């Protein structure tokens, strides 16, 4: 579908990015002067952006609008225009980012109230929102890349917000580096586009991607996937996401659950024309999704840190989304719908976790929680609704969107479809298990608090966003799948939905998923709910548990495969450079100096030895002359 030039309010959609960016600039440059009202400004810009985004979306009505801004870089045959593409897909993300973003900004006012650097926190959050909006609004791959690394920077700054803690600083660095590995893939994909097609705009690339050889498109798809894996914490680059929980909890909710980590899904959905042309790359997307889905679910079952459980859950849920978009046209809408509902309930769950931590003196170990339900009613109820939505309790958000993905997997119709569908159902059971375990360890049972902890409900400024997100968790699935189907809204992007031919009847899938979920809940109750939870983690556990605790040894693999050899290589090279390269140069200088001083020794200072050498020289010359003239 053709794009149309911008008109009306959409022509001003650059303000969506500019507003939070200006907020960040004012807060960072303004210094302490802005301490008193900084958080209000930060929240205000995002709320305004949300309103603007909503108005733009209402004006959009199924068109694809191109907003041209200025020439970013144009030299030779490369021409990169700074421009925005406002279409139904980006509109969805704009609403998610600014909507959830605004709620989390409000929540942060309360959560960060006692932090002396709250202003800075809001500046970074604003910076993140601006970069994320650029990522989803850009109309070419360079703008996407700028936003892509911009959110990486914001993520780095926010994970390291409490940078006095070495663990936070290290986690931030790890996140940035692993993201950069992915970024290399994205960058190379862009280079490949330019080399092959001479353009980096969405329109140009998608319009002529069909002309390329199959191998080239596959390479492009795989490189883009590498980028997506880095940003979205997918296998094999998943290890940074759980560590990123070192950041303040609102950050985990906004960046590492609801928005940034779903950028990979956006990228693959946006590049649908490329993946349509390469079944191979699409199959790899599918495989990555399926593998990550299981890794996340398994690892989530054995964590004791409440945020890490949620983090692995995020990894696993994004695996679902990758699985969905890897299925091709039948899965795009399902994946995006799950992305949206996940944005609601996972953000809600993280905010709830933050509320719990707030109450427990920043304790995160679930073995130190227990019996919190009566003390924190609002948190308990909102968290509970998020929990039910996540595990796919019938007629809540997750139920609709997760079922849609599983159905789409079965709809492939072949053996792989059954395998993937089966894995997805199994993971749904695991999800139910680990989330129920979390609920039981946190809100039920006997209190296992540290002495001196007095849990209390959080202030209204924190609970209000939680309530709104809980409402979203309950209703979003129904609204997006049943009431106002997302397929229709996204038709300008992915084409009109076809009447799906279901291999397995949807009702069968729903029942199956619900049963497996119930089994998961029951198992969790049997394991956790019935017995006393030990305050320290048991040491003597099965190898499976041990592997799950260490997230299937992802860190160990990274460490032994990359970090240690890298450190060794660095040390070796430093030695080579100092001793080898520089040594050769210094050695040359030393040789010259040495030989000159050795030659100098022939100058004894004795006149008569000089005279002898003169005589010898004269004789040699005379001899030579004689030889030449006579010979």
């Amino acid at each position, binding site marked *: 579908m053709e794009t149309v030039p911008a008109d009306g309010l959409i022509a001003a959609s650059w303000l969506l990015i500019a507003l939070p960016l200006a907020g960040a600039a004012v807060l*960072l440059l303004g210094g302490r002067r802005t301490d008193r009202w900084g958080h209000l400004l930060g929240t205000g810009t995002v709320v305004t952006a949300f309103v603007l985004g909503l108005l733009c979306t209402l004006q959009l009505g199924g068109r694809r609008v191109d907003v041209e801004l*200025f020439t*970013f*870089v*144009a*030299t*030779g*045959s*490369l021409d*990169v225009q700074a421009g925005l593409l406002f279409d139904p897909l980006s509109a969805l993300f704009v609403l998610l980012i600014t909507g959830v973003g605004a709620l989390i900004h409000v929540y942060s006012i309360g959560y960060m109230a*006692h*932090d002396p650097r709250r202003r*800075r926190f809001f500046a970074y959050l604003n910076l993140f929102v601006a970069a994320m909006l650029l990522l989803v609004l850009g109309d070419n791959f*360079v703008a996407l*890349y700028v936003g*892509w*690394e*911009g959110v990486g*920077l914001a993520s780095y700054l926010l994970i390291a917000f*409490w*940078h*006095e*803690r*070495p663990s936070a*600083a*290290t986690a931030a*660095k790890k996140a940035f*580096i692993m993201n*950069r*590995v992915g970024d*290399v893939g994205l960058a*190379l994909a*862009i*280079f490949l586009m*330019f*080399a*092959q097609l*001479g*353009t980096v*705009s969405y329109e*140009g690339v998608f*319009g*002529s991607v069909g*002309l390329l050889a199959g191998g080239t498109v596959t390479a492009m798809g795989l490189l883009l996937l590498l980028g997506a894996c880095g940003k979205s914490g997918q296998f094999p680059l998943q290890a940074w996401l759980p560590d990123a*929980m*070192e950041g*303040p*909890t609102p950050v985990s909710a906004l960046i590492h659950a609801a928005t940034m980590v779903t950028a990979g899904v956006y990228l693959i959905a946006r590049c649908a024309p490329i993946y349509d042309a390469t079944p191979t790359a699409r199959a790899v997307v599918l495989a990555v999704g399926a593998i990550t889905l299981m890794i996340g679910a398994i690892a989530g079952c054995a*964590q*004791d*840190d409440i*945020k890490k459980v949620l983090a692995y859950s995020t990894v696993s849920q994004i695996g679902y989304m990758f699985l969905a978009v890897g299925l091709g046209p039948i899965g795009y809408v399902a994946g995006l719908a799950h992305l949206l509902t996940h944005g609601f309930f996972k953000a809600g769950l993280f905010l709830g976790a933050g509320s719990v931590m707030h109450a427990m003196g*920043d*304790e*995160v*170990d679930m073995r130190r929680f227990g019996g919190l339900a009566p003390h924190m009613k609002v948190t308990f109820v909102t968290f509970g609704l998020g929990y039910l939505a996540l595990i796919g309790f019938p007629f809540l958000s997750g139920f609709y969107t997760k079922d849609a993905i599983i159905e789409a997997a079965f709809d492939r119709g072949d053996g792989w479809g059954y395998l993937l569908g089966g894995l997805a159902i199994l993971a749904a059971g695991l999800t139910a298990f680990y989330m129920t375990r979390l609920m039981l360890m946190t809100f039920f049972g006997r209190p296992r608090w540290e002495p001196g902890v007095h849990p209390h409900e959080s202030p209204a400024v924190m609970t209000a966003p939680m309530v709104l997100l809980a409402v979203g968790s309950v209703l979003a699935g129904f609204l997006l799948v049943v009431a106002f189907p997302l397929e229709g809204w996204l038709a300008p992007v992915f084409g009109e939905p076809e009447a799906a031919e279901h291999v397995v009847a949807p009702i069968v899938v729903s029942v199956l998923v619900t049963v497996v979920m119930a089994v998961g809940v029951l198992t969790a109750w049997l394991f956790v709910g019935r017995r006393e939870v030990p305050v320290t983690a048991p040491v003597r556990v099965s190898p499976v548990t041990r592997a799950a605790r260490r997230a299937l040894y992802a860190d160990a693999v990274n460490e032994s495969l990359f970090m240690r050899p890298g450190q060794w*290589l660095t040390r070796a*090279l*430093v030695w080579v450079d100092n001793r080898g390269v*520089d040594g050769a140069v210094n050695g040359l200088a030393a040789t010259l100096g040495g030989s000159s001083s050795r030659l100098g020794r022939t100058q004894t200072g004795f006149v008569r030895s000089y005279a002898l050498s003169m005589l010898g020289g004269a004789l040699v010359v005379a001899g030579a002359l004689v030889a030449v003239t006579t010979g």
Partner: protein
Amino acid sequence: MSDFPWLLAMIAVPAVGAAGVAALPKGRDGTAKQAALGVSLVVLLLAVLATVAFDTGGERFQLTTSVPWIPDFGVDFALGVDGIALVMLLLIGVLVPVVVLASWRDEPTGQRSMKAYFAWLLLLESFMVGVFAATDVFLFYVFFEAMLVPMYFLIGSFGGPRRQYAAVKFFLYSLVGGLVMLAAVIGLYVVSANELGEGTFAFDALRGIEIDPGVQKLLFLGFFVAFAIKAPLVPFHTWLPDSGAEAPIGGAVLLVGVLDKVGTFGFLRYCLPLFPDASRDLAPYVLVLAVAGVLYAALLAMGQSDMKRLVSYTSIAHFGFIALGIFAFTTEATTGAVLYMVNHGIATGLLFLVVGMLIARGGSRQIGDYGGVARQAPLLAGVFLVAGLASLALPGTNSFVSEFLVLIGSFPTRPVFTVLATVGIVLAALYVLLVYQRTMHGPPRGVLLETPAETPAPAPGGGGGATAATATLDAPAAAPARLRVADLSPRELAVAAPMVALIIALGVYPQPLIELVEPAVAATMSDVGADPAGVEPEAPGGGTD
């Protein structure tokens, strides 16, 4: 206005200023630095005015001045700039006042007074302008060698503990390269005498002559060795870490910011147009050095314990990118390389400056002597971060534009080298973030502590994931007594602010700069036989956007 000899003025003003500063009576260091700042600002103004007078659509060389100098050998004192040289003059114009301001409170380390320091600085500026503005190969050579003298004294008289060693090493390396180049310059003259009947050193005349391929290769190598040492490319690089580490901060900024660019500038101005066949034949070997430099120097940077050495090694990696861009022979990559020359001067210049500010506080160059600076000096840490991010080419900073152009322009002609160099961006993130984390993050430690007390234990928590907000906030009270690291003073802010502003501005809107250099780049491309219109897409049908 265009009749005014801008370039001559830009050479003469700092030279006269240097003489004036040197002639000041002893003990007038205060006057010396004010005079130096004034003179360097005048040069900046001249550079800006020259840019205004420059017409991007006009002749290749503009603002020309030519006076016969040694008529017997056809040597002219000929000055003129194309877009590439002009942006380098602008870079010089910006960096020197910043450097003067940054050296405001420096104490001399040797016996020389700071008056001498500023005099040498101004003389260096004069020579640097000359080397970029010369359009006569002999004149270029003269300025090329003359630059060594002030730099030698800046390092040798005002540097760190091993300044003598570093200065001699710098001088010898450069001299060896320079002499090899002198041989090639003379060879070029002889060739021109054979071809044209009368020998000449004028760049425009030399550009037109056909040279035998074998001779071309030899002459190319003569120039190349000099420029590869200057730039520096691996394995001619080991002088730079020593010089960069021992030089005073101001000298180090100009050393990597401008002086080394003479090498890459020389590739572009002399190697490619004068010896196009040899450039094309030998490009693969140069690219091997370039990419090896990107990866090798990045790994080495990670292994350094001395901050200034680390920054020097990052520069070597960046020069690898520049060389890659130049020897890929596409308009996009070469434009990127030229931008890279400017942007690297700003970004790495700022990195050196901020490292210098940190060293001025702690008195040590060792990374291990610092820690947790961000807590006490957030502005300093912020500027450090901006410089670091520009060094790792984060989008939104100026370096991104140039690195992106270099890579995207090199990929169509040299995919393997480009892929390898792209891996370098991960290494860049590693070396920047490693040093940032070690010095700025974590609990305060090292020389910033008054007593070598125990560091505050990290917050306890399950699985190391504790979010101990309140615990951390209480930490300062519980922490041992420590020297407060002062945040940036207004003078230091005045040093950093223009650099940060340039980093962001050129990162967001680089197009004016691109338009300034593109005609010169296109001319160079047609000299070397590449298509100045840029890369042709391989697949049909791909339009521009």
